């Protein structure tokens, strides 16, 4: 299947991107791309996890998973495994979890 979004998921070394799941609460980031080879990834695109979207990590659940994010005016939670499908560029330097 052709992946029109492939250009948005470049290799790690090029763009300084990290998986969204690795950011600590309080950090903000910009989406670089979503691995859209899986249905979950394509779904995340439709839900608004699109390139250039600004995302803030709000908090982790008390047991560490899922994680709540603020984007596009709403607070959304994803499980860590799903957040790992989203590559982001962290907005500022800081500790990574």
């Amino acid at each position, binding site marked *: 299947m052709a992946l029109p979004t492939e250009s948005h998921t470049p290799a790690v070394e090029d763009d300084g991107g990290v998986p969204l799941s690795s950011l600590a609460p309080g950090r903000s980031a910009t989406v670089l791309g979503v691995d859209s080879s899986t249905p979950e990834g394509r779904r995340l695109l439709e839900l*608004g996890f*699109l390139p250039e979207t600004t995302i803030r990590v709000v908090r982790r659940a008390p047991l560490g998973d899922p994680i709540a994010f603020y984007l596009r*005016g709403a607070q959304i939670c994803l499980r860590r495994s799903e957040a790992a499908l989203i590559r982001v560029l962290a907005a500022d330097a800081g500790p990574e979890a």
Partner: protein
Amino acid sequence: MSAAAATAPLRLGLVGSPNSGKTTLFNALTGLRAKVGNYPGVTVERREGSANFEGRPTVVIDLPGAYSLTPVSPDEEVVIRVLDGELSDAPEALAVIADACTLERSLLMLAQILRREIPTCLVLTMTDELQARSGRLDIPRLERALGVPVLGVVGHRGIGIARLRRLLAKPEDWSRPHLMPPEEIHARAGWVESILDHVFTRRPESSRTSDAVDRIVLHPVIGPLLFAAVMVAFFQLIFAWAQPAMDFIDAGVSRLGHSVHAQLPAGLFADFLADGLIPGVGSVIIFLPQIVLLFTLLYLLEDIGYMARAAFVIDRVMARVGLEGRAFVSLLSSYACAVPGIMATRTIPSPRHRLATILVAPLMTCSARLPVYALLIGAFVPAVRVAGPLGLQGLVLLALYAAGSLTALLVASVLTRTLLREDTMPFYMELPPYRLPTAKLLAAQVWGSAWAFLRRAGTIILAVSIVLWCLLTFPRQPAPVGASPAEASRHAIEHSLAGRAGHAIEPLIEPLGFDWKIGIGLIASLAAREVIVSTLAQIYAASDQGTSLRAAVQNDIDPRTGEKVFDAPTVASLLVFFVFALQCMSTLAIMRRETNSWRWPAFAFSYLLVLAYGASFATHRIVESLLG
């Protein structure tokens, strides 16, 4: 417009994401005249209501919540099929409902809808909240940018509803977009961003009140404690508040039955009325206190915004057995009764998670098992102290609860790894801002659930209880001469179809240690588990279901072996059987309603029967060998 279109009601579809305020608007537009049903072949609820806009009769279709028209969830698939006219007549006009604070996300779907070229308008809800979150939106500009009418409302306060009605009366006058939005997702995102830049003088911030509340409610330590407290209170209220109402209904039903016997001449008609029809109706309405109470609490927590937080807190735990956070409340409710518990699975968007939750809910120890446990434990487990205040009877009861709950989790984890593995839904849940609930919306939601239960499951429950009464009554045998009423009743049940079936299945249940009398009890308990107690009372011609029945079962001697029928292995085996078996037609009926087919209730019944049989057989053997 043609003359036909002027007389036939206009079909107007409401499209919007979950939490967009769509249901509030639907209720405001239609009152409580919603017709609730299912779309053919799918489990998604169908809601339509009639309304009159400026003298124009209109059918308002409340389409299921959707984030996108690229179908992933069954709800979204239904939205598309309705728009295509596959599931019902296609709507002639659409009102897209969008929360003004999350307009960014809603415009992604609006772009897809505009491409379908149906007359469309955009209704922005929660405009008060947008202001509170310092968002500034230029609605006339948005209208010009999109090319379709845009209207801001505050649904729960009725602000803007009159203007909305005027707008909805004339969809043929709505403006159409000058330019078709792009289809491809990234291009669509660009289109959305350019519109947002144009219409927002200030984007909304995250809600400060909600953030402040969340810092406490989702605190790493306070969060779980609060969760536990809310769930304990939730469970307690269902038990404590529903029980008096249920006892009241129960007493009323039996009083009514007695007075029918007293008023009418003895005979088949009086028996049918007093022992068949009235208890049958009673077995339907007995669920109403629990259903009304459960859904009032459930929707209250949901409308406030806590339900999503609770699921957020517990999701990690439920994920271990392949379920998700929202399944927890369902399973907890099933401790009171699986019927409302299964109805509560509707909040779970993933069909796989929902089905797995439905299939294991009957394993949670419901209140109908308690009379059975009380009889057997009271009669056969000695009331001795084990350690401190812990008595042996209480420990056995606790073990029965634990066995059911642990099996439920185990089965869920097996099902989600085997039969129900395929799924493309990521776990995606919105934590909506905290909102004040409104009594009107709450009443509409609770009424909707209670009515759906009465119409769809109540009819099945009533029919089955009448069939069971027939099985326990026919063929009628004249009582032996000089028999007391209790003996006559025993004679009648022993020679009924169910009584014969009890004898017939004796070879099958003998390995479990059950005789034909327990067999009849098991057949009768298909109506509801606790019915085995009254049936045994009838078979033993006991004068009451308390001490007299307890003495009768304790002293019952098997004529062939000369030993007690209820020996330790048999009692243990029977208790275990009740932990697992799905002897509850109401649960089967509600499963049928919620999954829209007999396939899943049949599956649940079978797997739980196999489980019950196997576990009882093993228990019987083990206890027997332990006792030498």
